[in-house]
């Protein structure tokens, strides 16, 4: 019969780990690390998907799919880019794909008017500025939109954006310039 033992000094929590250590722990099957990675990047994924036009009622499913894709591909992550850049890349691809599907669905919506009202859990969704911004962003082509969102909302540098979208830095600057001009024009149209 064992005696009650002194507990050992607690190990550092996964949330304090650097991305590289977190990835290593995830690959080793550490469920705590999986959760920490999720908690660290869930707000980013949510924000990015929102800005790329994933509607409120599809955001949870989108985030779910993105994280499953992240966890599934983690073994291929070579650590050459930042983990966040890599997650942005997956999220962008997914959001654009969702957008394509959505446009297809919208053509069918006329005959299917049984959609349920959307529940707004996020207080930020109730903001008028957000609603206006979303309407303006929706008018941008996906490539310009992605660059503008990554630069203006996510705060990435042109170099990081070029890694995410897979184009030269000059192209990033060019797309950003055009996107900004179109946004200002759209804003002027909305505010006479």
């Amino acid at each position: 019969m064992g005696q009650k033992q002194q507990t050992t000094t607690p190990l550092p929590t996964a949330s304090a780990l650097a991305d590289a250590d977190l990835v290593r722990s995830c690959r080793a099957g550490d469920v705590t690390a999986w959760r920490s990675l999720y908690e660290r990047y869930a707000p980013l994924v949510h924000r990015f998907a929102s800005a790329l036009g994933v509607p409120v009622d599809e955001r949870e499913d989108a985030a779910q799919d993105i994280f499953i894709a992240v966890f599934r591909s983690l073994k291929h992550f070579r650590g050459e880019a930042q983990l966040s850049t890599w997650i942005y890349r997956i999220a962008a691809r997914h959001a654009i794909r969702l957008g394509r599907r959505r446009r297809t669905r919208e053509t069918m919506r006329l005959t299917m008017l049984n959609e349920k009202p959307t529940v707004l859990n996020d207080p930020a969704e109730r903001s008028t500025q957000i609603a206006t911004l979303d309407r303006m962003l929706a008018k941008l082509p996906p490539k310009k939109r992605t660059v503008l969102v990554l630069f203006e909302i996510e705060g990435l540098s042109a170099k990081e954006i070029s890694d995410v979208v897979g184009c030269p830095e000059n192209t990033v600057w060019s797309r950003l310039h055009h996107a900004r001009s179109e946004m200002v024009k759209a804003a002027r149209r909305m505010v006479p």
Partner: protein
Amino acid sequence: MKWLEEPQNEAERLLREGLDQAAKRTGDEITHRRVWAKVSEAIEGPQPRFWFSGRLLFAGAATVLLVAASVVAYPHVRQLSQGHVSQPGPVAKNTANSAGANAAESMVPAGTAVAPADDQPSVETQAALLEAERVPGHVVRTRAGERARVALGGGAEAELAENSAITWDNQHRPSVEKGSARLSVPHQPPGWRFSVTAGPYVVTVVGTKFQVHVAMNTVSVEVTEGVVEVGRGSNSTRLVAGDSWHGPLYPEEAHAVPAAPQERPQAIPTPAAKPSVATTRGLQDAQAALQAGDTNRAVEILTRAAQGTGPAAENAAYELGRITRYNLNRPRQAVALWDKYRTRFPAGLLRTEADLSIVETLSQMGEVRAALAEADAFMSRHPTSERRQDVQRLAERLRAAETASDPK
């Protein structure tokens, strides 16, 4: 300086404000919890399934090679080994005294990490960690003079003593079949439990070190660190560090239920150990049934899934309430279902959402007092929740309504 930080007109100001607001759109706590509940289902189990399939393939190929090699080597090995049969595998270390294989016995199908037993085995000095196939029916055995370390997934591992065996049951839980296993389980995230079976008993832990021993007629558990629960059917006993417990391997014959720990005689009854692990498949089927308009079928699937264990069962238990509320329009029954969820998963991933759903539903039903009580409980239970302010406002409205209807 940010773009449009100094706007020249109203349009630019609106645009800048919109961008600033969009940067704060990080989702609320409930959304993140709900998504994690779904994501964790996909990566549920000792290893994510998408990794598991590749390993299965590899291990299967290794097994075929090993069996073939065993058949060829069998006559030679038999001469060397008298009464000591084992199959060293591809990841085996320190296998000098583990002898050859008996293909017919096929004790160690995918290879094992074995090491000579000593009187005081320690994790640091023993064999390399074996990443065994964690599939139902797969057995890792040690023979006389051997011991092995087996990875159980999620950072947990078992140190098998000599003459012991560990397998995986139909719910992919490790199961100590014979002999002794010292288990080390890292602390599990909220909502996660790690279960090991031994005979008819399920040992459930959150993060601990303990030893399970299965003898001819008894099962015993000795806890070194942390807390474990030993359960069978609806009975369970909680053990803390220093406790040990034993029960009959065939309780039907002994007419016994788990006895209280020897050093701490008071047994703490807890809810019944559930018989199966719910899977994501069930939830997907329920979703498909809902989309097809077959709500009753969805309820049926979810009811079944909710009876299992794990995040999928938890999700199903919560979803049952949601469907009952919004699809079947039975608010009272929905509240009862969410309440049931809270009882089963008091620290569950969707606990905040269940509490919130109950507050909202009671309020919509006009059950002012009950809604107020729930709202107050919500605010004290979740003081940092992003929805606290919403609930507070609701509580204020409910109080005003209560006062208006009862001016005394």
